[in-house]
């Protein structure tokens, strides 16, 4: 039906627009967090350096590393090196899955040991709301990259497709760089 093809760059433009709008969704959550925290001077600060902050730091490093492997995947695809593209994409997905696994472990700890859940007060609501939405984004990203990986291995997709996927992945990383200080570091036990 559409014999004519889009010029290059349309997909990345589309992804940039998605990122802009998603940025606003996360910004809204963080603004709500700020407003609620200012309104409640006795905001709980339950995190201890170990294990919570150590865990969160490892998660941050894992996610940052996955951004690096994503950069390498995009670079490999730009040179039409599909074998290495698949390799680095798989590494990125592994990073994402490791992040989720670590995150779920930490959630479990919070629920079982510290007795903090989404319904035990505003801290829990904000914490699980913000990190939950972020984790959902990482999970979607892992699925998205898996589809790309399978396609690249079978000779489908262009360099622009991988770059577009990279944009999404870096965005999800960037959001975490706001969540880590605002939600974790600012809630360390005084």
């Amino acid at each position, binding site marked *: 039906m*559409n014999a*004519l093809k*889009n010029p290059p760059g349309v997909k990345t433009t*589309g992804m940039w627009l998605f990122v802009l*709008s998603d940025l606003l*969704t996360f910004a*809204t959550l963080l603004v709500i967090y700020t407003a*609620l925290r200012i309104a409640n001077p006795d905001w709980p600060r339950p995190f201890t350096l170990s294990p919570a902050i150590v865990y969160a730091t490892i998660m941050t490093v894992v996610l940052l590393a996955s951004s690096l492997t994503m950069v390498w995947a995009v670079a490999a695809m730009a040179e039409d090196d599909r074998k290495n593209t698949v390799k680095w994409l798989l590494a990125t997905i592994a990073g994402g899955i490791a992040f989720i696994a670590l995150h779920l472990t930490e959630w479990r700890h919070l629920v079982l040991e510290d007795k903090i*859940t989404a319904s035990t007060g505003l801290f829990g609501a904000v914490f699980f709301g913000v990190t939950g939405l972020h984790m959902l984004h990482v999970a979607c990203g892992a699925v998205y990259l898996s589809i790309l990986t399978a396609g690249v291995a079978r000779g489908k997709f262009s360099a622009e497709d991988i770059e577009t996927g990279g944009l999404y992945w870096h965005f999800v990383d960037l959001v975490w760089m706001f969540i880590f200080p605002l939600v974790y570091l600012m809630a360390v036990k005084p």
Partner: protein
Amino acid sequence: MIIFSIDHKVIGKQYIGLALFSVVLGTLLSLIMRFHLVYPDAKVRLFQAMWPDGAPGGQMTPELYLSLMTMHGTIMVFFVLTTAPQSGFGNYFLPLQIGAHDMAFPVLNMLSFWTTALSLLTLLAAFFVEGGAPLSGWTAYPPLSGLGRITGPGEGLGQDLWILSIALFCVASLMAAINFIATIIELRAPGMGYFDMPLTCWGWFVTALISLFAFAVLLAGGILLLLDRTAGTSFFIPGGLIVNDQVQSRSGGSPILFQHLFWFFGHPEVYIAILPGMGLISTVLSVFSGKKVFGYKAMAIALVSIGGLGFVVWGHHMFISGMSPYSSIAFSVLTLAVGVPSAVKTFNWLATLWGGRLRFTAAMHYALGFVSLFITGGITGLVLGQPGLDVYFHDTYFVVAHFHLIMGVAAIFAIFAAFHYWFPLMYGRFLNERLGKVHFFLTFLGVYAVFVPLHFAGFVGNPRRYPDFKEYEFLKSVMPLHIGVTHAAYFLGAVQLIFLFNYFWSQRHGAIAPANPWNAATREWRND
């Protein structure tokens, strides 16, 4: 026609069909509401048949009235005013007007339509679940909307479905917005700069940008409200709340916070409804005046500034919610500032007509009607934008009259103009001009007969969202006025049948249209 088509013209028509279905439903709901306001004690067998719980013995309960109001508002704002001018006509004509082969992402386009359709079905399902449709209006303020069944019959599953529906609608609108913006940025014909686009494209462009930011915020608000209802969080539920003599266990949240989020979306939303119409009216006035649009660049810039200002005026919906007087002044000044680009547009429309060779086609009638309604509805916006006056008028019928004229009826007139103007391209035939003009005059009359008196009800302090006025001594004096309005509404509803007949009849039996029958200069009429 393929159901899951990825062709922009088919998708445009699907959106228009969805909006037509919705507008008929929304209008019927409003007529039932108007009936109830005038005859609150009437026992109607039909009501009992449709809503056994909401109208026991045919007598409508206050809760049923509120649920009808909620559904009327939600259906009209989201599924008519947001879909028809932007996703409907925009999908069909944007690619043609900028010389693109289709939208940038055809599959995404198809998905956004079907997500919208799913969203409408989810909303309508609320009528059929236990407790019925929600009571909290299209604004869905918590705590009413945040606590579940305890706050009213429709606040159980009905409200959950409502929030789910709006969340789906947000997702669909975001997909559509990405598509529109990417298409305009990337797929303009070679050599076509932004300031070479017709003003219709500017209208769709700015509207898409507004959607991209506004719906993202509403989505966040909707998710949190859903969490408050289902996961036991209390983002928007304050502590120590007593509902039906039961102290609620939540604490710490802020209902005002939801109002901020909602109106950060809600105010831009009213521009989403009207901006595509503004773009279209500019084109129609210019074509039927035989002149270029007066002050093209100023018109484009005015669209952008209205869109931009739309994001910094949300506080004027919350003057009585408890707000620092300094914030009120800032919001008020910014709100009144919207009058400047609006006036630029109005005067440029008039200047476009000035000295032109006017052709009074049906589309031209609707375009002129649009300008009239835009002025009438806009002037009262300047009244409501001032905190001192708004404190009195807030939540009265004055507000109802204001927004129905400017974002409801004016936008609908733009849609009528669009149908008459583009019908030859969509179906190869004309809509009947004579019927169109008859419909125009009767509708124009009906609209003013319904909404002008409601301003006066507002002067008296007649509150909106009340299901029964006879309980209140001070409202006795406005009852005759309401009886008149209700009958005018019946008349207005009835004359819409003329348009519906014209629309379906002309698709098969209308006069065959030649290529470019209006002598328009824009690309969609070119046969290449």
